[in-house]
């Protein structure tokens, strides 16, 4: 706790506060009251002065705490930046053709001197000296220092898994890496800057809000400044101390103090979910997103087909089909095979789940397009309809009549039919039934899309599947629209079309061919497993490479904006109670009848003013956790959100200070001398 306090004290210098006019005014007020106190000390004036200084301190503390949370993370990231010796392949940068690079002579250079375009070779146990793309070889890499994920990942040349991050460690094999960043501009450099908040620039909305706060401050400076002649005229000796206290209570100190902390904490929340936003602007834009483009595979569906249904034919018992399907899949380690076993278990149809003695497994081959198992006196096959039919014909059998119909139905619903057949002894083989394999939509996706819809966000599923399959999955998942057989160009065209209508588009992607679309989208989340080009193009990187994270990003963006609005409303609503505390206290000398306005029945004018000042300071501290955490956010329609937040922060902001000031007054009135 001492570190943030030290930081907060440093931030109290006027030069630091120039960016925060509200706190600067508080500080000026504190200086004025300090002078007034020195000239005419009393317990009251000392207390007011002390609390005004505390108000400034608490104001800077919020930002210091928010920044402090990033410091630890930055420190661990810095360890990645130690200079190591890199082995640069001389002259490789100029070579057009790649391949055979590993055999070229190398020179040893410090990693800090590598420039974009240099080519280095890295072997097992070595640290990758800079960000880059693998251009030759394949290796497992430990990226835990960056992503927090301990399982090693595979990085290989070509394709969408070629990007490596400087500072990560090669665990096996040997790769050649083309460096893509200059010193000081690496991914880790950017991460450090982000989590520390050192390069933080105010986002457009933050600037706009600051302007509103500035104008409110200006109004209150005017109000208080002109109050001097008004009081003078009314026969009340104006007190600099009291006017300064009034001013500090009226200007929006709460939001003024917490505004930058809210921004830093918003970025921090993203970082905690392993998303790195390259700019605060992107986080803000996330709150405004109207259209969400989601890749089907891995985002909406698990990305592999799973058994969903068992459909027996010709009066075959379900148990028999299940038993055969299970038996043929026990030794099948493909996800499809495992999913069949799981389905049979889940339906309670499981028989003995071990491979019997003497069984011979029939592997899947591209020519047979079947797999299966041969038991003594019994053979089971499963595979594509036509392949199984060929096998049945070979044994002299005839596929069942209704088979075609079932296969057709499954195919047209976007699924994959897997026909199961068996041959007992030398009899002709016969079809037992069909296993319906389908791309299974992840659990809870429909609910999430419903939430998105409530928030006014349209979801569009992007898939390479044909229109038939795409529509089936889109309906099942509950997305609003889909783009089937999508090429990167289609994706780009869709984004442009939406943006032309004034909509903000968010998407995620990993491949190099996604890069233009990522750059064009208002919020582009690149997967960390993706290529450098994709990571460069997007304005966020998801270290977990989890495409559903996009939904979290949108929610964090909204939460950030709501927190700002809520605390501003709270801050302004607070002023009403403060007037009821301070104005009667100031004017009651000349106009005893104004004591009617002292609705809180505060014990004395001094106690009333001090209570308001103390409340004003303490409320900042009390709200720091809220600013850092963000207000509770549950996706809902705008109207619902607004009503809720107005009730909590508007009406709450109206009532809270009446209670708070009264309680403080009860305490303060016990102090002798006030």
């Amino acid at each position, binding site marked *: 706790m001492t570190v943030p306090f030290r930081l907060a004290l440093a931030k109290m210098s006027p030069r630091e506060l120039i960016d925060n006019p509200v706190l600067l005014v508080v500080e000026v007020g504190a200086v004025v009251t300090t002078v007034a106190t020195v000239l005419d000390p009393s317990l009251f004036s000392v207390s007011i002065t002390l609390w005004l200084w505390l108000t400034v301190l608490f104001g800077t503390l919020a930002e210091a705490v928010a920044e402090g949370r990033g410091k630890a993370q930055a420190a661990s990231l810095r360890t990645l930046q130690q200079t190591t010796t890199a082995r640069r392949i001389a002259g490789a940068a100029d070579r057009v053709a790649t391949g055979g690079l590993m055999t070229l002579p190398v020179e040893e250079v410090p990693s800090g001197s590598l420039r974009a375009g240099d080519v280095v070779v890295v072997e097992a146990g070595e640290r990758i000296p800079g960000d880059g793309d693998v251009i030759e070889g394949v290796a497992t890499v430990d990226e835990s220092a960056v992503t927090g994920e301990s399982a090693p990942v595979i990085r290989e040349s070509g394709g969408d898994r070629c990007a490596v991050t400087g500072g990560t460690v090669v665990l096996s094999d040997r790769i050649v890496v083309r460096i893509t960043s200059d010193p000081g501009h690496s991914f880790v450099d950017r991460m450090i800057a982000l989590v520390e908040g050192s390069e933080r620039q105010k986002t457009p*909305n933050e600037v*706009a809000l600051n302007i509103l706060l500035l104008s409110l401050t200006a109004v209150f400076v005017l109000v208080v400044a002109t109050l001097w002649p*008004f009081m003078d005229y*009314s026969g009340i000796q104006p007190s600099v101390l009291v006017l300064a206290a009034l001013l500090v209570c009226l200007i929006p100190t709460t939001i003024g103090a917490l505004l930058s902390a809210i921004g830093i904490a918003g970025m921090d929340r993203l970082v905690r979910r392993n998303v790195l936003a390259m700019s605060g602007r992107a986080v803000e834009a996330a709150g405004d997103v109207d259209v969400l483009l989601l890749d089907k595979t891995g985002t909406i569906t698990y990305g592999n087909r799973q058994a969903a249904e068992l459909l027996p034919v010709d009066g075959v018992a379900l148990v028999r089909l299940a038993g055969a399907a299970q038996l043929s899949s026990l030794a099948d380690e493909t996800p499809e095979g495992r999913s069949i076993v799981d389905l049979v278990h889940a339906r309670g149809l499981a028989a003995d789940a071990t491979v019997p003695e003497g069984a011979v497994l029939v592997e899947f081959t591209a020519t047979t397009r079947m797999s299966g198992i041969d038991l003594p006196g019994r053979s089971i096959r499963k595979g594509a309809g036509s392949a199984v039919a060929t096998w049945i014909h070979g044994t002299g059998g005839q596929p069942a009549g209704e088979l075609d119909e079932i296969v057709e139905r499954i195919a047209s619903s976007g699924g994959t039919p897997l026909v199961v057949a068996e041959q007992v002894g030398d009899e002709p083989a016969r079809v037992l039934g069909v296993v319906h394999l389908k791309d299974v939509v992840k659990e809870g996706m429909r609910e999430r899309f419903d939430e998105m*819809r409530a928030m006014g966000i349209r979801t569009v599923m992007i898939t390479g599947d044909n229109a038939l399959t795409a529509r089936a999955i889109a309906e099942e998942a509950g997305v609003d629209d889909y783009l089937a057989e999508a090429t990167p160009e289609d994706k780009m065209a869709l984004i442009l079309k939406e943006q032309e209508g004034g909509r903000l588009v968010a998407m995620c992607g990993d491949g190099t061919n996604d890069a233009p679309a990522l750059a064009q989208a208002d919020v582009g989340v690149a997967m960390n497993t993706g290529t450098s080009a994709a990571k460069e193009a997007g304005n966020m990187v998801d270290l977990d490479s989890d495409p559903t994270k996009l939904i979290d990003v949108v929610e964090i963006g909204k939460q950030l904006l*709501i927190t700002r609005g809520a605390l501003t409303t709270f801050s302004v609503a607070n002023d009403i109670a403060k007037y009821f505390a301070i104005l009667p206290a100031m004017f009651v000398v*000349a106009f005893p009848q104004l004591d009617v306005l002292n609705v809180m029945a505060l014990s004395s004018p001094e106690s009333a003013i001090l209570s308001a000042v103390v409340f004003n300071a303490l409320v900042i501290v009390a709200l720091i956790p809220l600013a850092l955490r963000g207000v509770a956010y549950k996706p809902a329609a705008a109207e619902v959100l607004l009503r809720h937040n107005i009730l909590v*922060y508007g009406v709450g902001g109206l009532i809270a200070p009446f209670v708070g000031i009264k309680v403080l007054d009860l305490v303060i009135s016990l102090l002798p001398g006030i």
Partner: protein
Amino acid sequence: MSSLVPALLQVAALVALLALTVPPLARYLAHVYSAPRHLAPERVVYRAVGVDPDADQHWRSYLTSVLGFSLVGVLALYAFGRLQQHLPLSLAMEALPADGAFNTAVSFVTNTNWQWYSGEAALGHLMQMTGLTVQNFVSAAVGMAVAVALARGLARSGAQGRVGNFWVDLVRGVLRVLLPISVLGALVLVVLGVVQNFDAPQVVGTLADGSQTLTGGPVASQEVIKELGTNGGGFYNANSSHPFENPSPLSNLVEVYLILLIPLAMALAFGRLVGDRRQGRAVLAVMSILLATSIGLLTWAEMAAPGAAPAAAGGAMEGKEVRFGEAGSALFAATTTGTSTGAVNSMHDSLTAPGGLVTLFNMQLGEIAPGGVGSGLYGMLMLAAVTVFLSGLMVGRTPEWLGKKIGQREMVLVALYVLATPAVVLVGTALAISTDAGLAGQQESGAHGLSEVLYAVTSAGNNNGSAFAGLTTGTPFYNTLLGVCMLAGLFLPIVFVLALAGRFAAQHRVPAGAGTLPTHKPLFVILLTGVALVVVGLTFVPVLALAPIAEALQ
């Protein structure tokens, strides 16, 4: 309690009249400000002035036109005032002093109609008719034009900052809206007994064997535009309490109706101009809530008559006309201060202290309840922008309003707008209260004295024009101070409004969705009302506490 029945009856009649006529007028207004065709007389004007009526002006050019046109008006009126003894139909009136001529010129051009002089005793017919009556029309039309420009800015998409043609808006406002209604209204007023002639002053013998000079004149024609254009400058110093201007409770009701007609219709016209009539109804709702509240409070204050003197006299009838009674006076007072009219049918100085507080607060709201013919709408829209900004954040989006983003540049303009008028009023009042020249004109000291000065500066700064009386303002100090307040109080806000209109017009419209803040629902109406009350309350409560509040609680 017997007086409560007529009080309610007159409000009921007013509401019925407005309900019948405001919606069709709104439809007509929207048509006037968007129809492509020009009428023959309008073409004549455009040719005479040398403007291209089909040119779509950039907001800067629109603003330059507004300012240029107003400057010409100020100079012309100033010249009329200084030279009136040489002009025909002058009734042998003397030239106005320089500060007085400046004040009067500014006053009429800014639609304030603050009158430091006694109309019938200082101005000849020519000055009254050509100078003041003409300005009564055009200054109102300027206000409406600015409001329409802001509505256009919101309605357009990607229009490169173009907000319409000022000259067309001005000419149409006068020829198609104000003139026809004025002609009808003047006839009605004449029927109801308002004077209209060109006679020389008549000297009549009084019952007490003395003699009295009665100045007649084109009263009805000025009366109607005085109310319709929310101007407020009376032919007579006694304004609408003068029996020649406002002879009966019925004419009183008609005048109140005329005051409210256009400001309320502009709210609905706004909805039509932005292509979403619900938006206009929401604005109308906020205006109506504020207006109804102030009428109710003011009527209560006057009829319940808190205070020692009224209690002793049996009613708060000091400064009121017997023919209007407390309710008729309260209705007029609330209406004239809630709009930027400033006509009076009773002496606001003599209102009960809470009644005086309501009139002051009405003006300090920035003339939005329902405000001047144009300033009411644009004032309300600027506050709506503040409300949208705060509530827009609270729904988790960067604030947008009718598909337009309120970003940093927009916020600067809104913030400056919100700051401008309170700054004028507070600084002006402080200046008056802390200088000998300012204090010299005071009739009373203490809380009521502060009320008097605050009222005068508030009235000038908000371009209302009504006076609290009690304060002698025809001095060089007040003529100059209030003149500057009127200028700054009108044109500073207009600069920000038009700049904002231009920025909105340049933006591309963002389509609305379920996540967009709805600005037409009851919740938004409540919020906008709340923001207006809180923003103004926080600004003015301290000084109000020292003046009418302290007085009221005595």
